[in-house]
C-alpha cells in the first residue's frame, strides 16, 4: 500500500513538472489563427519549438509583414545555429549594437545571405516573397542550382514575368514538390513575387525547411476501368484522364495535354508553355472586324519529353496537322475548325492564325512528340490510330509509364528526364478494380491507398464502407460532381410544349424527399447545368421548391382542368399522360421514375408510365420519347450551354442544324428540340466574346433562360465518393470533382508520410 502511494505521489510530481509546458503548447491557439486557417499547423509547430511567438494580446497577426532581420532570426533558430558575433560587422546597416547582429552574422557565416548590395542588408525592410525564395534556397543548399544557367525556369504561375531576374531560379526551386517553400494563389495561380511575405507565409516556409516533404514509396490508386489507350487525342475520356492528368503532365479538359495546366478551380496556367496568350501583352491579337485572330505561344527552353528529346514548336505544328487529318481517329478538339494555319517562326515560338473568333483560343493546343509520331504518320496517317504510342506514350509530365500490365495495372515511375523537379513518389500504380467490393477489400487489406474520385461508387456502397470502419484509416471525400441527372423533355410533344406544365411538374416534385429516399441525402438538387461554384453559374435560379398547391394553381390559371377520374386535362382537351424512358436494367433510375410518378399522380393527377429502353442516344436522336432520364456533364463550364440548347450549332458551323432530324442524320445535340431565339442570340454573343469576365454574365443569363423554360427537368447533381488513406499528403481535389481537372492533376505533389 505504501509503495502504491509513493508511486502515485511520484507520478503526480513528475506530471506537474510538465504541466506548464503542456499549457504553453496549448497557448499556440491564437485568437486570429482559427482551426481552418491554412497555415495553422505550421504556425503551431514553430511556436512549440520557440522559433516564433505570438503577441502579448494572444494574437499572432498571421497577415502581418516580416522584416528581413526578423526572418533571418527565424531561419537561424529553425536551423539550430548559434548567434555569431564577429568583431567587424559584415553590413554597415547591421552594427554590433543592433539586436539582430548575432543572427545576421550567423546567417552570413552559413552562406544564407549576401545583402542587397553596397555593403548593406536592409534589416528593417519587409521581405519580399521572391527574396524569401532566394534566401531559403541557400538555406536548403540549392543556391548553386538556383543560379545554374541550365536550370529550366518553370514556376507554373501566371505572373512568372514579374519575378526579378536574379530570383527566377530560386522561385523555380521554391515551388517544386521536394521543397514547396512558396505556394500559388488559388484563385489566380499567381505567385506574387514582389508582394511582402506575411508572418503566416514565413512560418509556413520555415516549417517546410525544417520538415521537407517525404520522398519515395509507392501509391496505389484504383481505377474502375482500364484506359483504352494512352494516346490522349484518340480517346480523351474516362480513366485515361486520371492516369495522364497528373502523371503525363497536365491534361486540360478535352482539349490538350501539356501546353497548359488547369487547377480544380478552373484557373489555366502555363505548363510546357511559358505564357498563356493574352490580349494584354500582345500574344493574342483580335481583329474583330475581319473576325480573325493570332495567338502566340512560347515554349519553355529546356523542357523535354520523357525520353530526353527537347520539346520544340515543331512538335506543335506537326501535332495540329496530325490531329486534323481525316484518317486519324481523333476525338479531342483544339478548335481545329477555326484555325486557318499554324507556324513555328523559331523552335520556341508557335503561332496560330485563326480564321474565326474562338474564345477558347488560349486553352491549349495539341502537343505530341513529332520525333516519334512523324515517321509513322508519313508512312500512312491511319497507322497513328493503332501505333505503339497508344500503349507506350512519351509525355512531358513528372511520371513515366514503366509497365502497363493489360487488364491489371499501369505502373508509373518518377520521370528521370523531368525538367521541373521530380515527383515525390517513386511509383504511382493504377490498379484496375471493376468490382466495388473487391476494391474495398483491397483498401482494407492495405493493397490500395486511393479509390477513384469519380463516378462509380454509389452513396449506398460508400455508406456501408463507412460503417465497416474504413474511416479510421481513410479520409472520406463526398463532393458534388459535374454530372447532373435530368429528364430531357421532347418539346415537340403536344402536351409538353407548354411551359406552364413543365414548371408545374417541377413544383409538384419533392426533390428533397427524393434525394433523402433514394440517395440517402447525399446529393444536391440541380436547377441548371453549370456546375456549382463556377463563376458562370447563375446566382438566383428558381429552386422550384416543392409546392404542389402552387403547381395546381398555375395549371388552373392556364386553363387546365381535372376530369371525373381526377386526371389532368390540358386546355386543348387532351388528358395529360407522360411516358418516362430510362435504360433497361437501371434500377436506380427506375426507382426515381416511380418516385416522380407518384408525386405527379398524387399532386397533379398525371399518369406516368415507365418505358425501359436500350440505347439512350437512339431515342434522344430520333425523338421517339416524351421524357428520357439520363445524366451528362459539361466539362468546360464556360460553354456549358453551347451544345445542347442552341438550334444552330454555334460551336462548330452555324449552317449545321443542331436539332436532330432525319435530314442531318440525327447528328444534332439539341435533344429537347429547344428553340429559343433569345437563348440563341445570347449563345452567339457568348461565342464571339473573347474576354472571359465579359462572358460570365452572358453564361448566367443563358442559365436563367434554361431554368425558366425547362427544356430539361433538372433533378440532382451526382455525388462523388472517394477514400484516401490518411498518410497520403498533398492531394487537392477542389470543391467539385471533375470540373476542370482530374483529381490527379497535382500528383507530383502527393507524398506518403510515415
Amino acid at each position, binding site marked *: 500500500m505504501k509503495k502504491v502511494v509513493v508511486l502515485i505521489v511520484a507520478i503526480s510530481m513528475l506530471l506537474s513538472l510538465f504541466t506548464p509546458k503542456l499549457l504553453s503548447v496549448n497557448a499556440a491557439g491564437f485568437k486570429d489563427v482559427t482551426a481552418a486557417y491554412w497555415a495553422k499547423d505550421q504556425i503551431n509547430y514553430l511556436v512549440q519549438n520557440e522559433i516564433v511567438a505570438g503577441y502579448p494580446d494572444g494574437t499572432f497577426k498571421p497577415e502581418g509583414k516580416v522584416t528581413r532581420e526578423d526572418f533571418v532570426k527565424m531561419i537561424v533558430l529553425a536551423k539550430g545555429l548559434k548567434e555569431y558575433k564577429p568583431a567587424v560587422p559584415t553590413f554597415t546597416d547591421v552594427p554590433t549594437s543592433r539586436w539582430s547582429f548575432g543572427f545576421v552574422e550567423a546567417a552570413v557565416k552559413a552562406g544564407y545571405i549576401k545583402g542587397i548590395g553596397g555593403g548593406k542588408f536592409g534589416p528593417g525592410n519587409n521581405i519580399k516573397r521572391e527574396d524569401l525564395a532566394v534566401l531559403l534556397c541557400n538555406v536548403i543548399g540549392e543556391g548553386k542550382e538556383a543560379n545554374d544557367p541550365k536550370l529550366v525556369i518553370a514556376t507554373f504561375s501566371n505572373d512568372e514575368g514579374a519575378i526579378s531576374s536574379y530570383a527566377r531560379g530560386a522561385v523555380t526551386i521554391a515551388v517544386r514538390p521536394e521543397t514547396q517553400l512558396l505556394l500559388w494563389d488559388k484563385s489566380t495561380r499567381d505567385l506574387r513575387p514582389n508582394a511582402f511575405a506575411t508572418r503566416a507565409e514565413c512560418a509556413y516556409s520555415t516549417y517546410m525547411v525544417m520538415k521537407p516533404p517525404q520522398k519515395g514509396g*509507392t501509391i496505389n490508386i484504383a481505377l474502375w476501368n482500364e484506359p483504352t489507350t494512352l494516346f490522349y487525342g484518340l480517346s480523351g475520356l474516362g480513366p485515361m484522364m486520371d492516369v495522364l492528368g497528373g502523371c503525363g503532365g497536365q491534361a486540360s479538359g478535352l482539349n490538350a495535354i501539356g501546353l497548359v495546366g488547369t487547377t480544380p478551380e478552373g484557373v489555366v496556367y502555363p505548363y510546357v508553355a511559358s505564357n498563356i496568350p493574352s490580349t494584354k501583352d500582345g500574344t493574342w491579337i483580335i481583329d474583330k472586324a475581319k473576325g480573325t485572330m493570332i495567338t502566340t505561344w512560347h515554349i519553355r527552353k529546356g523542357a523535354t519529353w520523357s525520353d530526353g528529346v527537347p520539346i520544340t514548336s515543331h512538335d506543335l505544328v506537326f501535332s495540329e496537322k496530325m490531329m486534323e487529318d481525316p484518317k486519324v481517329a481523333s*476525338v479531342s478538339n483544339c478548335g481545329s*475548325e477555326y484555325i486557318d494555319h499554324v507556324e513555328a517562326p523559331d523552335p520556341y515560338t508557335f503561332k496560330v492564325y485563326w480564321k474565326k473568333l474562338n474564345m477558347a483560343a488560349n486553352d491549349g493546343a495539341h502537343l505530341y512528340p513529332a520525333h516519334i509520331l512523324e515517321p509513322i504518320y508519313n508512312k500512312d496517317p491511319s497507322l497513328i490510330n*493503332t501505333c505503339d504510342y497508344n500503349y507506350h506514350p512519351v509525355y512531358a509530365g513528372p511520371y513515366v509509364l514503366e509497365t502497363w500490365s493489360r487488364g491489371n495495372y499501369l505502373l508509373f515511375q518518377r520521370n528521370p528526364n523531368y525538367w521541373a523537379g521530380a515527383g515525390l513518389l517513386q511509383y504511382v500504380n493504377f490498379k484496375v478494380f471493376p468490382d466495388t467490393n*473487391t476494391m474495398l477489400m483491397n483498401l*482494407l487489406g*492495405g*493493397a490500395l491507398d486511393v479509390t477513384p474520385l469519380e463516378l462509380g461508387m454509389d452513396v449506398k456502397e460508400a455508406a456501408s464502407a463507412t460503417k465497416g470502419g474504413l474511416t479510421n484509416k481513410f479520409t472520406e471525400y463526398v463532393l458534388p460532381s459535374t454530372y447532373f441527372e435530368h429528364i430531357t423533355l421532347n418539346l415537340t410533344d403536344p402536351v409538353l410544349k407548354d411551359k406552364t406544365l413543365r414548371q408545374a411538374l417541377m413544383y409538384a416534385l419533392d426533390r428533397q424527399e427524393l434525394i433523402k429516399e433514394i440517395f440517402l441525402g447525399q446529393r444536391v438538387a440541380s436547377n441548371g447545368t453549370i456546375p456549382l461554384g463556377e463563376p458562370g453559374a447563375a446566382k438566383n435560379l428558381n429552386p422550384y421548391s416543392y409546392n404542389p398547391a402552387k403547381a395546381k394553381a398555375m395549371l388552373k390559371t392556364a386553363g387546365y382542368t381535372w376530369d371525373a377520374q381526377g386526371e389532368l386535362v390540358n386546355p386543348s382537351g387532351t388528358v395529360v399522360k407522360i411516358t418516362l424512358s430510362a435504360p433497361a436494367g437501371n434500377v436506380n433510375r427506375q426507382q426515381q421514375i416511380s418516385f416522380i410518378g407518384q408525386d405527379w399522380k398524387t399532386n397533379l393527377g398525371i399518369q406516368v408510365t415507365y418505358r425501359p429502353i436500350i440505347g439512350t442516344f437512339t431515342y434522344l436522336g430520333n425523338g421517339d420519347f416524351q421524357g428520357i432520364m*439520363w445524366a451528362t456533364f459539361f466539362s468546360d463550364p464556360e460553354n456549358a450551354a453551347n451544345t*445542347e440548347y442552341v438550334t444552330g450549332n454555334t460551336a462548330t458551323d452555324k449552317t449545321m442544324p443542331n436539332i436532330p432530324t432525319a435530314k442531318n442524320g440525327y447528328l444534332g445535340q439539341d435533344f429537347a428540340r429547344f428553340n429559343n431565339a433569345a437563348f440563341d442570340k445570347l449563345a452567339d454573343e457568348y461565342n464571339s466574346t473573347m474576354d472571359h469576365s465579359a462572358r460570365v454574365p452572358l453564361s448566367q443569363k443563358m442559365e436563367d433562360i434554361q431554368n425558366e423554360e425547362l427544356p430539361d427537368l433538372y433533378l440532382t447533381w451526382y455525388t462523388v465518393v472517394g477514400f484516401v488513406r490518411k498518410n497520403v499528403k498533398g492531394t487537392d481535389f477542389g470543391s467539385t470533382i471533375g470540373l476542370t481537372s482530374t483529381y490527379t492533376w497535382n500528383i507530383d505533389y502527393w507524398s506518403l508520410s510515415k
Partner: protein
Amino acid sequence: VRNYLIRRLIQSIVVILLVSLASFTLLNLLGDPFKELLMNPNVQQSTVAKLEHIYHWDMPFLARYFYWLKSFFLFQNGWGPSTTYLNETSLQLIAQRIGITLTLSSLVLLLSLLISIPLGIYSALHQYSSTDSFVTVLAFFGMSMPVFWTGIVFIYLFSIFPVIHLGGHAILPPGGMHSTFLRMGQNVIEFYKAPIVYQILNRAWCLVLPVIVLTLWNIGPWLRYQRSSMLEVIKQDYIRTARAKGLKERTIVYKHAFKNAIIPLITLLGLSLPGLIGGALITETVFGIDGIGRLTYNSVMGRDLFTSMSLIMVFSILVVIGNILADILYVIVDPRIKYQ
C-alpha cells in the same frame, strides 16, 4: 463416317450464318455506336461523321453485314475495330484475353474432374453411407453458393483477415493477374524485371483463390452426374453377371462399371467446350482478372458492336464444334451407337 461429318459440317455452317445474321440485326437495333459519342457534349458532330466514315458505318445495313461477314471469315481488319477501344481490333482484344481465360477454365475443369469423378464413384458405391451424405451436402453447398459471395469471403479470409487482425501478410493474393512487385529475398523487384520463373510462379499464385472458388462451384454438377450414372450402371444385369462370375470387386468397378458410367460425362465434356473459352464473368470481375468474360460483358454493355459480334461468333462456332465432338466421342466410347 465421312458423309456424316460432311452433312454435320454443312448444317453447322448454315446454323452459324443464321446466328450471325440474327445477332448482327439485333445488335444493330441498339443503334449507331459512334453516334453514342454525341451524348458527350465535348464531342463534335464532324468528329462522329469522320469516325463513321473511317469505320464504314455510313453504308446501308446489308452492305455493313456482308462487309463484316467477309472480314470475319477471312480474318480481315482484325474482325473490325472495337468501338470502345478505338485503336484496337476485336481480334486483338480477344487474343489478349484468351490465354488467362483458358488457363483458368482448364485448370478448374481439370481439378473439378479429378475431384468429382473419384468422389462420385465412391459415393455411388457407398450409397446412403455417411460419406455419401457428406459429399452430397458438399456438392449442393458448392453449387448453391454464388461465386461473388464465396469469392469475397475467400478474399477476406485469405487476404484481408491476416493483415488487419493478425498484423501479418496476406496468405494468398486477393486477385489480379500478377503482383506489381515481387519479393526476392531482401529485394523488392518490379514484376517484369524478375526472372521468368518468378513471374510464372507469381501468376500461378494469383490464380489460386479464383481456381479454388470456381472449382468449389463446379464440382457439384460433375459429382452428381458421375454419381447417378454410376448408380445406374452398377444396377445393370451385366454387373450382376460379373459379380456372379466371381470377379474381383476392383475389376468390376473399374473395368465394367466405370467405362460405361463415364459415357454421359464425355458428352457433357464436349458441350462444356464453349464454357472453357466463355470465361467466368463474375469470378473474373471479383478477382480482377481481365479475361473473355469481362470482355464480353464490357463489349455488350458498351455497345461495342464488332467485338460483341466476334465473341458471339466464336462462341457459336465453339458450341457447334463441341456438339460434333461430343457426337464423335460418343461413337468412339460406345460401340452400340453408329453414325447415321
